[in-house]
């Protein structure tokens, strides 16, 4: 890492003007007040976190700073100078760079082409490309931002794509870097690398604004933190002087339980028995290489792993919708009965009829139809149920009543069954899906990434419901890339790597370090000292006192 810090190096200099100062920023979208009288001060050369639940207005605020939206009211000062940011070009000229949650890269362009796009030096490409190549080399050395400049984006891993976004900002000489939920798509190792990069940037005097809803990241890397709640800035504190509990409380406006309270499991008869499940996709890639496990009644089996190691295929196969053209072998027994792996009796409807509920990994494309109303979404998959039908016609009034009841149960907000799924926040969308599946009281619930992009309040709620289902004697298969979630919810943890189950552990008898090794494909027989450096990632979360609400 480049240790040669400039004179500003890392130290917060209180005399200097703030890198960013916002005064009384307000922004409304129709009747929704996304930002209300926001004040924010970010010191130069620091990492400033902005934390808040989904829909708290963090991204809107940053979009205003980057010229995507015009604020209705308020002032923006960059380095002490008042500035009107009418478009992204102005923001870029003011030295602001933004790394969006969803990367803004052209997939079939090379890294170099993406870097110069919009920042070319003239009408012809060649001089710009040559210059960018040089600059890139320099930046790579300075900040550990190594990327092959001639690779196309679609051949890069997500972590590397993110580096390209950071390089894009640096190439435009950004002094202030905004990162929106940067670790949402990263593996733990990639996230750690990102943090090292950010620290390097800070050492060079850059100012970084980190938007996240993960408390761990705030505690780990920021110097100061601002908390947003429902469009308002509710607190700005030094990170050293606060705690995860305090921040969590500020975020949701009440105390939350970060640890799931649950009674010891009382496993009954096996509900699901999976034996030697194999799946080869239509491109000939082996996605599952002989997966076997059992789940008993009243038990949650967590499957941990870095995404892309076969979890998705496993869930889809159990749910009855494996990818087209996939070749499948092995056996699945549900309550002692063999399930068809192929043919018309292997579809999702049949699986549901057998008592398998499914909360898919991707709620927006598989769990919901975004443009349909909430009440319609509540009936999907169960639309043949007798109570939803009257002869040939659907009984819409009954579905609506049922939807209202379920939305009430799951505290879906706003409680308006006529609203399109798209118009709910991520957490509430997920609640709709979970409500639909859990309220059917399935014998087995498949849950994929139940809390991805979901705010803390909803996470807690969804976790509780999953535990309740397990306590009522049902089986749950939980797939998640969040180790926190796996460890706090599961009764047993299985780690998947490259289509194989690497091992099973009991959550209270393992460590994130051990699971991390298994997730990386290192088995017990391999060397143990390989990665001593893995930080105790989620330790502080686990250490929290269990406080009743």
């Amino acid at each position, binding site marked *: 890492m480049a240790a040669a810090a400039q004179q500003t190096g890392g130290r917060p200099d209180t005399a200097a003007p703030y890198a960013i100062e916002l005064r009384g920023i307000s922004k409304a979208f129709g009747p929704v007040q996304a930002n209300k009288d926001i004040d924010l001060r970010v010191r130069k050369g620091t990492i400033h976190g902005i934390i808040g639940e989904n829909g708290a207005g963090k991204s*809107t605020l940053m979009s205003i700073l980057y010229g995507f939206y015009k604020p209705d009211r308020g002032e923006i000062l960059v380095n002490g100078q008042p500035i009107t940011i009418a478009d992204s070009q102005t923001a870029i000229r003011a030295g602001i760079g933004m790394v969006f949650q969803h990367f803004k890269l052209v997939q079939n362009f090379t890294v170099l082409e993406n870097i110069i796009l919009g920042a070319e030096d003239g*009408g012809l*490409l060649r001089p710009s490309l040559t210059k960018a190549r040089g600059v890139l080399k320099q930046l790579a050395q300075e900040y550990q931002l190594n990327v092959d400049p001639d690779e196309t984006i679609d051949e890069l891993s997500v972590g590397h794509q993110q580096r390209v976004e950071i390089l894009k900002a640096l190439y435009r000489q950004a002094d202030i870097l905004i990162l929106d939920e940067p670790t949402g798509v990263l593996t733990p190792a990639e996230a750690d690398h990102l943090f090292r990069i950010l620290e390097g940037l800070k050492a060079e005097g850059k100012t970084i604004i980190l938007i996240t809803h993960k408390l761990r990241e705030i505690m780990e890397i920021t110097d100061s933190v601002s908390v947003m709640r429902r469009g308002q800035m509710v607190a700005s504190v030094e990170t050293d002087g606060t705690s995860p509990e305090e921040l969590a409380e500020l975020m949701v406006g009440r105390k939350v339980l970060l640890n799931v309270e649950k009674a010891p499991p009382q496993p009954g008869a096996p509900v699901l028995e999976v034996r030697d499940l194999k799946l080869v996709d239509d491109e000939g890639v082996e996605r599952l290489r002989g997966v076997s496990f059992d789940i008993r009644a009243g038990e949650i089996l967590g499957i941990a792993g870095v995404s892309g190691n076969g979890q998705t295929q496993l869930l889809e196969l159990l749910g009855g919708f494996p990818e087209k053209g996939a070749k499948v072998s092995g056996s699945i027994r549900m309550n002692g009965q063999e399930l068809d792996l192929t043919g018309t009796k292997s579809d999702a409807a049949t699986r549901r009829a057998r008592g398998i509920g499914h909360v898919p990994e991707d709620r927006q494309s598989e769990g919901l139809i975004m443009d349909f109303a909430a009440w319609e979404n509540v009936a999907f998959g169960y639309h043949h149920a007798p109570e939803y039908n009257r002869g040939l016609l659907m009984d819409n009034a009954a579905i609506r009543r049922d939807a209202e009841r379920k939305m009430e149960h799951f505290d879906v907000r706003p409680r308006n069954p006529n609203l399109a799924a798209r118009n709910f926040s991520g957490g509430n969308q997920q609640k709709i899906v979970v409500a639909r599946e859990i309220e059917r009281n399935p014998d087995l619930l498949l849950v994929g990434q139940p809390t991805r992009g979901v705010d803390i309040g909803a996470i807690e709620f969804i976790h509780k419901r999953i535990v309740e289902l397990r306590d009522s004697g049902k089986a749950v298969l939980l797939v998640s890339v969040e180790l926190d979630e796996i460890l706090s919810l599961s009764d047993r943890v299985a780690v998947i790597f490259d289509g194989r189950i690497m091992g099973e552990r009991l959550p209270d008898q393992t460590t994130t370090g051990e699971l991390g090794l298994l997730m990386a494909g290192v088995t017990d027989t391999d060397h143990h000292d390989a990665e001593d450096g893995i930080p105790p990632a989620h330790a502080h979360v686990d250490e929290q006192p269990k406080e009743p609400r």
Partner: protein
Amino acid sequence: MDFATIIQILDSAVRLMTPLLLACLAGLYSERSGVFDIGLEGKMLMAAFTSASVAFVTGSAWLGLLAGIAGSMALSLIHGLASITFRGNQLISGVAINFLASGMTVLLGIKIFGLGGRTPALTDGGRFNEVTLPFADALRDVPILGPIYSELISGHTILVYVAFALVPLTWWVLFRTRFGLRLRAVGENPASVDTAGVSVTRLRFAAIALAGILCGLAGAYLATGLSAGFVKEMTAGRGFIALAALIFAKWRPWNALFATFLFGLLEAIANRYPNLDLGIVTVPSMFMNALPYILTVIILAGFVGRAIPPRAGGEPYVKER
């Protein structure tokens, strides 16, 4: 089939492919920027009409050409307004343009010239003349190369040479200039361009304007180069064939040259041999004439490899975080 016949067929193919090539490049600019353009047909038709009309009235093929470009450009702007500014459906806007052109040209034709929708035949000044390249006559008697140069390469109208020159030019613009980089980017991921501080709307309008100019050239060539005046529905589906060629060409300029040549060749063969005698059977003329269209269907049905269109094609750009 002797050498002279082959030269003649190829020569004819070159003439016939020219409007296809121009329209195909028009579609290339538009679709590379993420705006689907099924209105190529309508724009060409409008350009053919306006160019023939103005060329007849003024007696100048060049003024006719300008009028052709203006006519096509007007429809392009309508397409842009509907599908870029107001974020309407690009396909529906394109269909509307085709209908508009098909109706307007006949209506105006009847109203102005009273010839049942056609324009009066153009005489010499109103048409583009064939350009004889230097030494074409002198080299005519050189074996093989002589006929190729003087028959096949020489002796086309200026628009044919323009069309062919546009192929390397388009390649150069697309892959070697800033405009080209941004154009390709906006068709793949407009958000990447927008967040870089470049206007998506302006880029797409630029692309559509280029498409308007090229369709104008294509239409003018049809009416004042290939034939001598406008005839009702004279484009005869060439806009759609150009679209098929564009897909076949995978949105690449050099491929577009070969794809449109293939279509031109089929048309030339059908013209040369209305009833192709294969010894055992005689292929009827209807079938021969239908060949380009049959090829179009085959290409559009996806039998010719997998073509990946620009990723953001067909989607109006809506800013989101």
